């Protein structure tokens, strides 16, 4: 009798506990998930939809959407748009050249991975460029490249006899901006590798040393394999940095001269909100293309995470 009673009262309590534990995660998730859905997930869907419309961003006085459906029209226009082609090419240049941040960052990390007096201060000062805003980085480099008195201009004048105003040269301007972007990016990669180098297994290094490995062979066959997690993160943040390159283009050149330094992110902004009027649907189509490019890399990242999670 007594045993029956405890069993009977335990059953509902267990059910309640189970219930609490199945509802609790959703209650904890609710505010964050709500915000994220409203401001990130749903806008992605809206932008994709909008890319099939022609819309100037306005509503009629009844508050109704005034866009007209144009099907693949915006995308068809992009196909034959020379400015889009320039932007796409420039994005490719950014992607490829930004990868230079990896070897340079690794090189600086190796250079700084010592235990001498004051090395911590050196490490943080080397990291400096990453902490400051890209707007400031852009202004700093605009000054560095400035015609007639900029240090870069004076340097080229000394070396070649004729100064190069890199931001005014349609053929060189993108490289000039990429160099400015590399400055903070290298600092970021450096800090990733410094952390990685700190965690390289010392016994493996010693063992390899006893086997006579040194220099490049040591780096390539012993150290780099152990730095793989750092390299992976570095590749991801560098790709994202390259594709997000909006601030520098906007600050340094506004896409000029003659639109030659445009990238997709900047061209999209120009079309949707810039001086060319409010072509929201066309802008959205550019954004969708950029999103599709980014998705390739995001999927790779998620796939890797998925593998790590299921291994555990």
């Amino acid at each position, binding site marked *: 009798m007594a045993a029956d009673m405890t069993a009977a009262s335990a059953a509902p309590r267990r059910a309640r506990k189970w219930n609490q534990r199945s509802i609790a*995660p959703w209650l904890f998730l609710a505010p*964050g998930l709500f915000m994220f859905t409203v401001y990130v997930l749903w806008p992605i869907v809206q932008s994709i939809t909008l890319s099939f419309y022609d819309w100037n961003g306005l509503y009629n006085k009844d508050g109704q959407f005034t866009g007209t459906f144009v099907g693949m029209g915006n995308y068809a226009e992009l196909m034959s748009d020379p400015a889009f082609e320039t932007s796409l090419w420039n994005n490719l240049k950014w992607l490829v050249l930004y990868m230079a941040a990896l070897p340079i960052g690794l090189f600086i990390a190796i250079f700084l991975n010592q235990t001498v007096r004051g090395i911590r201060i050196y490490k943080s000062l080397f990291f400096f460029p990453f902490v400051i805003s890209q707007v400031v980085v852009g202004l700093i480099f605009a000054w560095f490249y*400035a015609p007639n008195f900029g*240090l870069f201009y004076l340097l080229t004048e000394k070396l070649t006899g004729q100064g190069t105003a890199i931001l005014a040269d349609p053929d060189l301007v993108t490289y000039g901006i990429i160099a400015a972007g590399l400055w903070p990016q290298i600092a970021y990669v450096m800090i990733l590798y410094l952390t990685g180098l700190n965690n390289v297994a010392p016994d493996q290094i010693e063992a390899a040393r006893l086997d006579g490995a040194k220099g490049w062979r040591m780096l390539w066959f012993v150290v780099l394999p152990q730095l793989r997690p750092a390299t992976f993160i570095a590749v991801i943040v560098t790709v994202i940095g390259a594709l997000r390159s909006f601030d520098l283009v906007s600050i340094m050149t506004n896409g000029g001269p003659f639109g030659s330094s445009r990238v997709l992110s900047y061209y999209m902004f120009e079309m949707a909100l810039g001086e060319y009027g409010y072509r929201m649907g066309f802008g959205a189509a550019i954004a969708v293309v950029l999103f599709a490019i980014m998705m390739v890399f995001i999927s790779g990242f998620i796939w890797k995470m998925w593998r790590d999670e299921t291994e555990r």
Partner: protein
Amino acid sequence: MFPRPIQQSGQAAQWLYTIALPVALIIWLFPLLGVALTSLRPASDLAQGNYFGMPSGIAWENYAYIFTKTPIGQYMVNSLWVTIPTVVGAVSLSLMTGFALAVYGFRGNILVFFMFVAGNFVPFQILMVPVRDMTLQLGMYDTWYGLALFHIAFQTGFCTLFMRNFIKALPYELIEAARVEGVAEWRIFWFIVLPLMRPAIAALSVLVFTFIWNDFFWATVLTQGVDSQPITAGLSSLNGQWIAQWHLVSAGSILAALPPVLMFFLMQKHFIAGLTLGAVK
């Protein structure tokens, strides 16, 4: 250790290294040093073409000028109004989402988690038109809270990734033991997990502060006037007015860079811990 500690090399190599360090640093920070020096150079020097020679004096008046004759002080206050609520909001929301994703093995857990992670990487432009439109519709365009709300939502993605991994690394027995004692789930969150999250909260706070202070794109898209524009957007519009007045541009740049730099130096350990998450196994 790799490379071989310099102490094991010859005397000459050690000397070389001691000299190479400051030289490399000066080359690396050269553009920044140049701008810092220009910000203290009198305008008359620049007018006479004395860009890199001895300055004729130290011109603190450049800073006095931008503070009194331009709204740069207001811009900096606006930046704080956007940045601080975003830090508080994103960290709070992600403590909860991170807890939910780390502690409970419900269906769809990994899917929700990956969604936060993936959302964090999307290009801003795919969000731009709808977010701006929604902010306008809600009457929040050109306000600090309109900008802060978006930042909170977006940063929650990155912060969730961070918090979830941090909580996952805590000893799970703590939570098990509390459950055996019959402690309610929210109390487990509040009294057991939260006190252990201090390092994670510190790391994320400095990171989010820096990200938001330095944000330019959303500041341009969601704000317009002196009353709400943060420093990045403000500096960009001032730059348009100060054509080639490099002493002012430099002073403004240094000022805009200062708060995140201070934050970084004060909280260096946390900052780097946050940034290098996942860089080691």
